[in-house]
């Protein structure tokens, strides 16, 4: 437990309390500032290098905010579903839970999915894994996936028996499912077109489980200091390692929050130009795409997280 004391939060009483409660308006202000920087850089950042540098700093700040500053559940979908059920019952809690989603959703509607690209701590750590420990050789990829799957399964089944195994280990099980999906993609890249749709199933399942009142932790819960839950830690470790095989694999194939935000982002005011400039394997400007060089598939078009690493243009009227 001493390890987790390192995640002691700096903010222990609300800086800007909402009606004298635990809800701290300061975190909304901070998130607003971070997303404003993100959106502004997307709009007006002149070069990929500037955008990338700004993005890196913004992600560090965002990670520190969630890991060290505030106690705050950042499960947008979950808290918004819970918040909606609390309206008229506990309005203060409803506001605290729902407003985060409203704030982030608003930015996504305007600028596209900048939350995933500029704020999400899990996405940031996955990128670090992909960039620092990339596994490019096909044989080693399969080997690593096999080790991850076996190791994760052993941890779950052997060391953590539970009365309600599935509901208590949802995130860890989903991360093992991710390993299976990634393995299938590597075996036959043609399957990816279909496997990209698995995230829709996960999204529906996520909403159903949350609506039914099944409370489960997420892969970032241990990081943000909320639930230091075994399933959360196992899930995170698996997701982190898998990202070195396929960058941001969780974001591509599973992440329910990201999937929902991608849907919102499809109607964003700021759009990315059609394939041809960004989504072309031949275009050297796309080499830095944080979602990886897998852009032949049109379905990827709306998965852009506005990382700004390519020479994209905005608001092509063909869209």
């Amino acid at each position, binding site marked *: 437990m001493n390890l*987790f004391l390192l995640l002691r939060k700096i903010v222990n009483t*609300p800086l800007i309390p909402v009606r004298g*409660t635990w809800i701290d308006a300061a975190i909304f202000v901070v998130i607003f500032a971070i997303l404003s920087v993100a959106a502004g850089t997307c709009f007006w950042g002149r070069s990929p290098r500037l955008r990338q540098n700004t993005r890196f700093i913004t992600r560090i700040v965002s990670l520190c905010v969630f890991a060290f500053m505030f106690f705050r559940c950042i499960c947008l979908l979950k808290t918004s579903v819970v918040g909606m059920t609390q309206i*008229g019952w*506990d*309005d203060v809690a409803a506001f605290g839970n729902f407003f985060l989603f409203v704030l982030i959703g608003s930015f996504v509607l305007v600028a596209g999915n900048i939350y995933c690209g500029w704020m999400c701590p899990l996405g940031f750590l996955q990128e670090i894994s992909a960039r620092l420990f990339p596994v490019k050789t096909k044989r080693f990829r399969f080997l690593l996936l096999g080790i991850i799957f076996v190791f994760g399964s052993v941890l779950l089944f052997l060391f953590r*028996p539970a009365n309600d195994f599935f509901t208590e280990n949802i995130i860890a099980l989903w991360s093992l499912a991710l390993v299976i999906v990634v393995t299938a993609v590597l075996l036959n890249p043609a399957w990816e077109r279909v496997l990209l749709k698995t995230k829709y199933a996960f999204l529906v399942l996520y909403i159903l489980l949350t609506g039914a*009142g099944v409370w489960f932790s997420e892969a970032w819960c241990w990081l943000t200091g909320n*639930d230091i839950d075994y399933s959360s830690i196992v899930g995170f470790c698996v997701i982190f390692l898998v990202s070195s095989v396929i960058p941001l694999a969780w974001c591509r194939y599973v992440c329910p929050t990201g999937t929902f935000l991608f849907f919102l982002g499809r109607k964003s005011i700021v759009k990315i130009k059609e394939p041809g400039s960004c989504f072309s394997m031949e275009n050297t400007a796309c080499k830095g795409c944080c979602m990886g060089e897998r852009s032949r598939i049109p379905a990827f078009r709306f998965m852009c997280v506005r990382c700004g690493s390519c020479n994209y243009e905005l608001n092509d009227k063909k869209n």
Partner: protein
Amino acid sequence: MFGVDPQHTQNSALVFPSSSFKLAWNFHAGDHIWSHTSRRSVWSSSGVAAEIDGTMRFFIGSYTNNVFCLEAETGKELWRFPSGGPVNAAPVFFRAGDKAFVIAVSSDRIIYCLDARTGEKVWSYEVYPWKFTVFEAVSTSPIVIVSGNTRQLIVSLWYADRKPLKNIQKGEVIALNAVDGTVSWRKTVSDSYIFSPAFAEIDGSRYLYISSSDGVMYCLAFLDGTQIWKFSSSVPLSSSPLITKTKARDVVIAGTPFGILYCLDAKNGKKVWEYKAGMNIVNTGCVCPIDGRNVLFVPSFDRFLHCIDVNTGTMLWRFETKKYIASSPIGIKIGDVFAVIVASLDNNLYCLDARSGKVLWQFSLGKRLWAFETRAETLWPSPIALSLSNKTPFLIVPWYDGSIYAFTVS
């Protein structure tokens, strides 16, 4: 009352001759299983026991809307009183002269005072009238404090009226004369859920402590409910306050859904220490004096029972079960040794050595009634210890399989 005393220390200090518990009786409320909803418990958060006319009786509320009176030695039902809603809060017992009363707060927003002998209603007080837009209240276990010649009843209750134009959400603290139900004062402290009040007398002054799910701990004057201080945390609070002493001061302790345990100075609300468990703490636990210091046993959803030194907030040991621990442990003595009885949602009841955490005895209880429960939104009852008139100690465990288990020592 809930928590054994108005400070919610959960330390009965009842002496059991050994840890060889055996099942004495098992009581079942009935075959009908009511559906699960949020903040519903099968039994009230705890029960209360009292001797009346030479017979030890046990009083407990139920999700069947009834307040039950059972004979503690045999488990035989003596009477039941039907209220208008689930009775999730532990009742409180008190005497006035030769009369004995039980007060229960139902989620139908009514405070009932019953004759403890017969179960007949003596008086009732409707906190908020029924309307089509009103939902079940969140009631908490009341306390009764003797104040001069009066018995002051303190009740915390949260209710909501979802009227379209004038939505009401109120957490109120109400002080009444326990004998006749006359209201002394009412105070709205929060819009969010509030938990069972705790009482303390410090330096001749009397205080009430109320924790709220809006993240605030309130200290009120006992006489009129005036706010003395309040402490705002950055997370909601999720347990009733517990009052105990360190070497230097009186402190009030409360838990949170993020596993943080706050220990505050009871006089001024300043934070003394905080402790981080892995997951939700929905019950503040129990305090026992061991080796000249107060030791706190805190249950958490991280599956551990944490043993913490109240003076410093450091962990002394922790015991792992296989699932969440949502109910408060209770402190007893086995011979000269302090022990802790804790029930885990892995369907086991554990008796642990309070010094080392070693398991002295374990019993398998039944599975919960419902296929699932909403984590931290369902209330789980805590065991109580009582002694019959012939000094036979009993351990009574209301459980979420719909039964009440009673153990004694062979």
